[in-house]
C-alpha cells in the first residue's frame, strides 16, 4: 500500500478532495465522523410555534442563515425579535462578491472586486443539494429563484501533474474507460467460471448482459474502439450531416494507464449523497438568499454591531455591544431569551455566563482553513475553446478545483471562474499570502490546465476564511472524540441561552445545518417560553 501511494500522483495531495469533498469539506468530515454520517436533512416543513407568550422576546446574535431563519419564524410566531449583526450586510457566510464590492480582511488588506455586472464569486457555500429541504424551502418562501448547479460535467477535466504528461483528461473518457475495462474483466471472470461459487448460472447470464450494457462492451464482451464505446467516451470524429457525416470511433485509454493515473479517484465526484443531481444555486449568486432574508427582516437587524459581552440573569439575557462605526460605545440589547449564532472562534472570546459544559464546548471546535479565488477573464474561453459549460475540473495541483460558472452560458464578454477551492495545509499557505499573491498563484497553477489563463486574465479576488473578520475560519470541524464529549453540551439550552449554526449540527459546513439547528433550538426555546408563561 505504501508503494502504491508513493507512486500515485493524486495521493500526494489529500486525495479526498477528489471525491467532491473539496467543496463541501463537510462531506469528508461527515464520512469520517462515525456520528456524523447522516447528511439527510431532518427538515419536515415549516415549524409550528403556536402559543407564544404575549410580549415574549428573543435576542438573536448573528444575521447569518441560522439567525435569520430563527428570526423569521419567531417573528411570525409573535415573538419580539431583534438581531445584532457584526457585518454591514445580512447573510454571514451566505455571501456573493460582485463587481463594485469592497472586502477588507483581517490584517487590513482591502480588495476591490472589479468583476463586470452580474458576475460574482461565492466565497462561501455555492451549491444546494436537492435534499436540503430546509434552505430550499426558505429560498422558495423568500422568492429567490434557483437554477441548476452542475456538479458533474462529463466534458470538464480530471488532471494529475504526474499522469498523461500533465495533460488534463476529459471526465467522460476516464469514466467510460474505467467502467468499460472493469466490465470486461468481470465478464471475463464470469465466463472463465471464476464466479461460479458466487453467482448462479442463471444470474451469470444476466450479469453478462448487464456488463455489456454497463461497460459498452462488444459482442465478445470486450471493451474496444467502437461506436458503442465512443458513444460513452466521445468519438475521434463526431457524427455529422452530409458528406462528412461518418463518425470515427476513438481509442480507449488502456486499463493500466487509467489505473496508474489515479484519475479514477475523481469518478465518484457526483456520487456522494450531497453531490448528487439535482443541485441548485440561486440566480445571481448564493448571497441572494441572505439578501432576501435581510430585506424580509428589515429593521429587526441592527448592523455594524459587535457583541462584547453576553450576560444572562433570572429574567433574560443582555448583550453588550458597540457600533463598529463608532467604537468604544456601550450599547445594550435585551431579550427574555437569546439565540446565539456567533461562530465559535469569535464566541469563545466573548465573556458569557453559561455553565462550564457549554463553555468547554465552545472552545473545543477548531475551524478549518479554506480559500477560494474568483478570476475574471476577458472571454469565456472554457466554453468557446473547450466546450465546458459549468461543472468542476479536479486537479492534484494545490488549487484543487476550477469551477466554471453554471449560468450565463454563451453570454458575450467576460466570465468569472472559481480559480481555486482549497482545504488543509495548502489553504493555510494561501491564507498566509497577500490577496494579490493568492490570485497570482491560482493563475499560475490554473494555466497548467487552461493555457489561455495568462492571456485572458482580467482581475481577481481571493477570500481566505481564516482572515474573514466575522468568523476567523471556514467551518467547525468536529472530531469523533470532541463530538462525543461536547456536542450535546453545545446544543443544550443553558438557562436562557441557546446556540445555533452549522457548528451545532451534523450537517457541518452546509447551510442546511444552520437552518435545522436554528429550528431545533427555537423549538426548544419556545417550549421553555410557553412553560414559563407570559411575562409577569
Amino acid at each position, binding site marked *: *500500500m*505504501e508503494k*502504491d*501511494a*508513493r507512486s500515485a500522483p493524486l*495521493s*500526494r*495531495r*489529500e*486525495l*479526498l478532495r477528489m471525491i467532491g469533498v473539496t467543496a463541501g469539506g463537510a462531506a*469528508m*468530515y461527515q*464520512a*469520517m*465522523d*462515525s456520528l456524523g*454520517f*447522516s447528511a*439527510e436533512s431532518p427538515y419536515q416543513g415549516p415549524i409550528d410555534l403556536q402559543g407564544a407568550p404575549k410580549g415574549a422576546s428573543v435576542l438573536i446574535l448573528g444575521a447569518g442563515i441560522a439567525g435569520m431563519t430563527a428570526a423569521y419564524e419567531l417573528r411570525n410566531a409573535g415573538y419580539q425579535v431583534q438581531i445584532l449583526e*457584526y457585518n454591514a450586510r445580512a447573510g454571514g457566510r451566505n455571501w456573493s462578491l460582485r463587481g463594485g464590492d469592497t472586502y477588507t480582511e*483581517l*490584517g487590513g488588506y482591502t480588495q476591490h472586486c472589479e468583476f463586470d455586472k452580474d458576475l460574482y464569486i461565492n466565497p462561501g457555500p455555492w451549491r444546494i443539494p436537492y435534499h436540503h429541504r430546509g434552505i430550499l424551502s426558505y429560498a422558495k418562501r423568500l422568492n429567490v429563484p434557483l437554477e441548476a448547479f452542475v456538479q458533474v460535467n462529463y466534458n470538464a477535466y480530471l488532471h494529475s501533474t*504526474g499522469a498523461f504528461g500533465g495533460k488534463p483528461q476529459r471526465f467522460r473518457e476516464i469514466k467510460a474507460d474505467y467502467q468499460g475495462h472493469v466490465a470486461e474483466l468481470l465478464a471475463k471472470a464470469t465466463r472463465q467460471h471464476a464466479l461460479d461459487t458466487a453467482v448462479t448460472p442463471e444470474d451469470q447470464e444476466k450479469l453478462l448482459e448487464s456488463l455489456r450494457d454497463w461497460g459498452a462492451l462488444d459482442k465478445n464482451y470486450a471493451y474496444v474502439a467502437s461506436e458503442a464505446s465512443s458513444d460513452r467516451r466521445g468519438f475521434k470524429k463526431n457524427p455529422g450531416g452530409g458528406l462528412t457525416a461518418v463518425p470515427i470511433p476513438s481509442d480507449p485509454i488502456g486499463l493500466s494507464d487509467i489505473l496508474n493515473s489515479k484519475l479514477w479517484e475523481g469518478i465518484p465526484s457526483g456520487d456522494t449523497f450531497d453531490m448528487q443531481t439535482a443541485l441548485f444555486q440561486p440566480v445571481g449568486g448564493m448571497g441572494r438568499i441572505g439578501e432576501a432574508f435581510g430585506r424580509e427582516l428589515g429593521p429587526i437587524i441592527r448592523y455594524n454591531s*459587535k457583541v462584547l459581552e453576553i450576560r444572562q440573569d433570572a429574567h433574560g439575557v443582555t448583550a453588550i455591544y458597540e457600533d463598529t462605526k463608532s467604537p468604544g460605545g456601550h450599547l445594550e440589547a435585551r431579550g427574555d431569551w437569546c439565540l446565539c449564532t456567533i*461562530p*465559535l*472562534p*469569535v464566541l*469563545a*472570546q*466573548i465573556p458569557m455566563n453559561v455553565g462550564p459544559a457549554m463553555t468547554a464546548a465552545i*472552545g473545543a*471546535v*477548531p*475551524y*478549518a*482553513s479554506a480559500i477560494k479565488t474568483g478570476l475574471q477573464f476577458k472571454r469565456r474561453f472554457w466554453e468557446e475553446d473547450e466546450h465546458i459549460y459549468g461543472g468542476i475540473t479536479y486537479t492534484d495541483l*494545490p488549487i484543487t478545483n476550477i469551477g466554471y460558472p453554471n449560468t450565463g452560458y454563451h453570454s458575450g464578454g467576460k466570465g468569472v471562474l472559481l480559480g481555486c477551492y482549497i482545504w*488543509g*495545509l*495548502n489553504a*493555510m*499557505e494561501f491564507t*498566509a499570502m497577500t490577496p494579490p499573491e493568492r490570485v497570482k*498563484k491560482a493563475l499560475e497553477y490554473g494555466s497548467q490546465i487552461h493555457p489561455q489563463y495568462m492571456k485572458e486574465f482580467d482581475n481577481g479576488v481571493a477570500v*481566505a476564511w*481564516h*482572515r*474573514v*473578520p*466575522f*468568523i*476567523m*475560519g471556514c467551518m467547525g*470541524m*468536529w*472530531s*469523533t*472524540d470532541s463530538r462525543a464529549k461536547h456536542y450535546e453540551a453545545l446544543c443544550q439550552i443553558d438557562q436562557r441561552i441557546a446556540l445555533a449554526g452549522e457548528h451545532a449540527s451534523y450537517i457541518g459546513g452546509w447551510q442546511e445545518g444552520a437552518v435545522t439547528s436554528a429550528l431545533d433550538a427555537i423549538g426548544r426555546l419556545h417550549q421553555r417560553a410557553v412553560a414559563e408563561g407570559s411575562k409577569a
Partner: protein
Amino acid sequence: MKVSAVLTTGLVTANLVMAALVNVAVVHVAHADDSTFTSTAGYGGASGAQIYDQICQGCHMPEGAGAVGAGHYPKLAGDPALTSWQYVALTVLGGRNGMPPFGLPVDQVMETRTVHLSDEQVADVVNYVRSHFGNKYKGTVTASQVATLPHPGAASAH
C-alpha cells in the same frame, strides 16, 4: 429502518475514507514542481521560520502583529503569555478557541483538516515566535521537552 440503512452507508464510507487516509499518511514526497506549496504529509522538513511564514502568519499576521475583527488573533509581538514556553507549545499542539491543533498524530489530522507538526517542529516554531517580532523571551525549547506535554488525540492514537 431508515436509521440502520444510513448507519451502514456511513460506516462503509468511513472505512473507504480511512483506507484512503492511510495511504495519504505514509506519503512524504513533496510536490515536485513547486517550492511554495507542500503536501500535508510532506511538511516534516519545514523549519520554525517556514512554519510561521506558511501557517501561523495566516492568522497571527506578518511580524506577529495579530488582528482584530469580531474577535481577535492575539498579537504575538510583546505578548506576555509567551513568557511561558509551555503555554505556547500547548497552544500549538492542542489549538485554542477555534485555532486548529497541530499536535495530532499524523493519521488523525484529516478528520479536522489540520496539519501534523513533529515535536521538533513545535519546539522550532515556539522558539521562533519567542525570539522574533522584538520578543526576547528566555530559554529555548527542545523536542524532548515538547514530548513531555500532553498531545491531543494521544489516547486514541491507535
